[in-house]
């Protein structure tokens, strides 16, 4: 593993655990859709109504939005803003930090309220934070010893770029 490029991975079990927590949350607060985005801009999971936009682009812009706001927070003497709210005429979104590595984005319309989303979000964020911290701890502990799916794939990589 090169210096400075720490990786993390998650299994199908992790994925279904995350999905279940988010589905429960969406039912509780009547929001439309929830996305989990890694701080570097990669989409981790989408739950609820299938978004009718490009989720990859959405994930990248979400991470950039959060990063830019982090810097704004520092300029005014705050460490960070752990949640952001963007209000639209019909659709709104609420973003919250999870374990300092992931961002939970919730899209909702006028079938629910910001107060309700915020209320139900708190325990969900706590639950997800716990899950991700365990996942990161596991990734860190396994670093170097875990079977690497690309180990010995040099030939295959060469072939890809021939």
């Amino acid at each position, binding site marked *: *593993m*090169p*210096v*400075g*490029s*720490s*990786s*993390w*991975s*998650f*299994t*199908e079990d992790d*994925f279904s655990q995350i999905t279940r927590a988010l589905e429960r949350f969406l039912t509780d607060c009547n929001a439309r859709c929830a996305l989990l985005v*890694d*701080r*570097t*801009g*990669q989409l*981790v999971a989408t739950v609820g109504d299938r978004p009718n936009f*490009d989720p*990859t*682009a959405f994930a*990248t*812009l979400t991470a*950039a939005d959060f*990063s*830019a706001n982090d*810097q704004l927070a520092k300029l005014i003497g705050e460490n960070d803003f752990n949640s952001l709210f963007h209000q639209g005429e019909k659709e709104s979104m609420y973003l919250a930090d999870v374990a300092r590595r992931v961002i939970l984005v919730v899209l909702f319309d006028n079938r629910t309220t910001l107060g309700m989303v915020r209320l139900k979000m708190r325990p969900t964020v706590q639950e997800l934070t716990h899950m991700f911290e365990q996942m990161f701890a596991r990734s860190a502990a396994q670093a170097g010893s875990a079977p*690497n*799916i*690309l*180990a*010995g*794939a*040099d030939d*295959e*990589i*060469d072939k*890809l*770029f021939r």
Partner: protein
Amino acid sequence: MSMINYASREINCKIVYYGPGLGGKTTNLEIVYGNVEPDTRGKLISLATETERTLFFDFLPVDLGTIRGFKTRFHLYTVPGQVYYNASRKLILKGVDGIVFVGDSQLERMEANQEAMQNLYDNMAEYGYDLTKMPFVIQYNKRDLPNASPIKDLQAALNPGWEVTDAAKMRVISDPYHAGENLVEQLPSGEWVERAQYFEAVAVNGDGVFDTLKAVSKLVLKALA
């Protein structure tokens, strides 16, 4: 920071195109966007000013193929080259897996190139990343212009090589893309140095764009293997 998603069987990696303003970083992405199959790429996102100068970043996701049943998905980013956008430039480097430095070959841009390279080293160091230990390639763009500096001058200024201290790495490695040149070699002074791979390009015509992308992607995947 590469992310392996076993649920969707994807390997996601982040590549950042860095370099001085107006050097051709955005053009590289536009050429990639225009020349790959539409079903292997996503949308090209540009956060630019009204005069099409990059304000925050450009972004393009591309799939480069499948390895061991995992889709290799590369997220390509450019940074704003203008000096005063350093805060946003630094944000984009977060979690980067591979870097392409797009240098402007024009003689009068030499200083801007050097400043951008120094800025890259500084910003990487602030994240605790060591550029000399990661997938890193250099593209000398605008080779078609009459005022382009000779490659050896650009190499001397931007890619003089870093010292190899690990004895195991002190062996000559030839440059697969340039006959007669080496990536790792011993200088007459006895010191061992390693240089980044470099490519000549005329990005507006597409020349060298894919060679650069392939080289950096390969280095990124090999770093994971």
